């Protein structure tokens, strides 16, 4: 009702302006303008008229938000306990439902050229699914994910698991000195990996640092910035596929995006999230 009143006032204002403009034909334009300027009326009229236009530009109906299925699954080479997590997205101004956002009535299948493995919901973990048979993830194998959720289109994605690799430097048990020139982490290239993820965590305190280096480099400087107090540390390197690299690169804060362009490049057809894969190596070192 308030909106209609605003529109009504603007319409009235515009129609009055039009009537005024209509009377301009009776006197020469230049003379008329001169009179208006002298009296300062034209400034006022133009201001008020355009204010109406300006205000009209800001109002727009809210975007029609459709909740989507959010998929998370990461296959790790050599591991067999790969889970799938399914949730729904939520309109920003809606309260979180008490039962959570997890989806539990989905049919999930992960397949290779030789095997097809079904998934079942995990009890007491809403939205989590685990394989019914052992699924040992093999390097360089292509995996296909199919999900059927009632009243939703079929969800599909696929990933090629990066090959295993080896950490060349530092070696297990090496001592890294923080005050020296930053020691380098070096590893061999992993086939089908588009990026590497580094994770450094202390065994004695909460120091934890992780970064997606966002490229195919196989060298990374371990800066003192990443390390905490003296003690044992575990450094992990994950060779990640394109799906997971893109997923990590989407952003981590309030500027997370989901415009049409990004949807086109998402690895999940019919939903959002990720079905990715990786190969992981780790080394334990001592930091001084």
């Amino acid at each position, binding site marked *: 009702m308030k909106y209609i009143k605003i529109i009504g006032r603007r319409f009235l204002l515009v129609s009055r302006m039009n009537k005024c403009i209509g009377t301009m034909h009776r006197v020469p334009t230049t003379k008329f303008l001169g009179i208006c300027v002298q009296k300062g009326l034209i400034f006022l009229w133009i201001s008020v008229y355009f204010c109406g236009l*300006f205000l009209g530009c*800001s109002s*727009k109906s809210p975007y029609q938000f459709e909740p989507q299925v959010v998929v998370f699954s990461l296959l790790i080479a050599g*591991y067999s306990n790969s889970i799938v997590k399914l949730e729904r997205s939520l309109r920003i*101004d809606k309260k979180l439902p008490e039962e959570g956002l997890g989806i539990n009535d989905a049919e999930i299948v992960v397949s290779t050229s030789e095997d097809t493995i079904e998934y079942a919901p995990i009890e007491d973990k809403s939205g989590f699914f685990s394989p019914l048979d052992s699924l040992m993830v093999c390097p360089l194998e292509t995996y296909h994910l199919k999900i059927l959720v009632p009243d939703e289109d079929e969800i599909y994605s696929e990933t090629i698991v990066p090959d295993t690799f080896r950490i060349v430097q530092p070696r297990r048990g090496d001592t890294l000195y923080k005050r020296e020139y930053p020691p380098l982490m070096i590893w061999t290239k992993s086939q089908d990996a588009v990026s590497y993820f580094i994770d450094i965590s202390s065994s004695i305190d909460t120091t934890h640092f992780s970064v997606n280096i966002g490229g195919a480099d196989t060298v990374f*400087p371990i800066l003192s910035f990443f390390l905490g107090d003296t003690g044992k540390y575990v450094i992990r390197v994950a060779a990640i596929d394109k799906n997971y690299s893109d997923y990590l690169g989407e952003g981590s804060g309030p500027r997370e995006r989901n415009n049409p362009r990004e949807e086109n490049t998402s690895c999940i057809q019919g939903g959002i999230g990720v079905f990715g894969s990786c190969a992981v190596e780790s080394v334990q070192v001592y930091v001084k």
Partner: protein
Amino acid sequence: MASIRRTYFDQLLKNTKFSFPYYFYDGMGKVSLDLTAKSNLAVAGLFGEDVFNYTIKEDDEDVGDLDMRWGNRGLSVKWLQYLTPKLHGEVLFALSNFHTDMNLTFLKSTSDFRDEVIDYTVKGDFSYVLAPKHTLDFGFDAKNITFDFEVKMDTLTILNEVDTARIRTFYLQDKWELNPLCFLQIGIRPTYFTPGSHFRWDPRLGLKYRVATNTTINASFGFYSQFLTTVGNGEELLNLFDIWLSPGEDYAPGLSKHYILGMEQWISNNFNFTIEGYYKTFEYLLQLKEKGTFDEDAFYVGSGYATGLDFLFKKTAGKFSGEVSYSLSLTKRTFDDEIFCPKYDQRHNMNLGFGMGLPWGLNMNLKWKVGTGSPYPGVIGTYYKTEHDFSGDSTYTKRVHITAPKDYYRYPVYHRADLDIRKAFNWKLLKCECFVGVMNIYNHENIFLYIWDIEKDPAERIAVTMFPIFPSVGFNIKF
């Protein structure tokens, strides 16, 4: 002539609980010398720097320091010479340095970002009078621009890229008053640019026709090339750290084609009205890929256009002066098949300016600006993003946002009024001016951005506003 100035809010608030970690200073100087009756030499220099220094605290303890400085320095030598009664010209040697430095010290670790653009220019502009109402302008412009970008963490240099762009331009412009009613300006600006060996002709045409005693019509057309670009994804509202670079071998320099048609009407001696319509196309625009890396293929190459109508009423002399300008415009960009209005698209924009003299030699200026709010994507949804920690099967989640298309929403109408009262006077050999100003006099809360408090259920939108009412006083001295 020389002048130096600095802001002192940081000093005034130094020992209070409101710290103001920003100041800027700048200065300029110029010496002009008549060598002969037909030649003049001018040397000019300028410098300016913005400084932002912020101490990062945690539980009242200093844990870090952010020091940002950006500004420019420049020096030029200009030599003007009348060679013959029909030919005169000037040659300019200029050096400028634009720099941005950011130093972050946090938990005993330091990070340094440095971006420097050094521009060496030699420029010549000549004018030859072919006939009393027919002049030929020609000249050259040779630039070497070095881009030096460095990132250091602790003692390690993460990135150090030095790149030099060379721009060689020659121009020819014919200015011809065909008859008392018609004035023609035709020119061409061939430019060669490396790296990448790009060549552009950049033709330009301008026509001014007097259709009545107090009415002229202007039309112009031209190609304009852009050889420098900044890195960005085109969406950030605040750029703390601008990185300038040349498009290099991989991308073509930006190109804009302008089509302009306008009319100027003198209503009386001190009052005129202009209207101008324009259509500008943009090609080879670069936008950083959000998922990309700094390797090859880091940018989307896009295009766009801007079109609009500008109106201006201006009263230039008399007891009162003032102007009213209004712009109706539309700007669109296309990147990777996505068409959208960029953040600087403003459909309506109006400025009112009013100036008058007051008693005791005071001058007052009042400005009011109103414009359509900028487009923004707006948060429409949320979900829990899960990530793996690669240590086994453990995962962690964070709540992230889903946004609408880039230009779906617009911020509310922006409007603001500023008042400024000045008094100029001479003291001995110094030219002095003191002023009192109030920015945003009616304290309107213009929206800078919206953020969402996701700790609350449901999430709550918080508006971050721009400057509130902001009084200022100042004193300028020129010597």
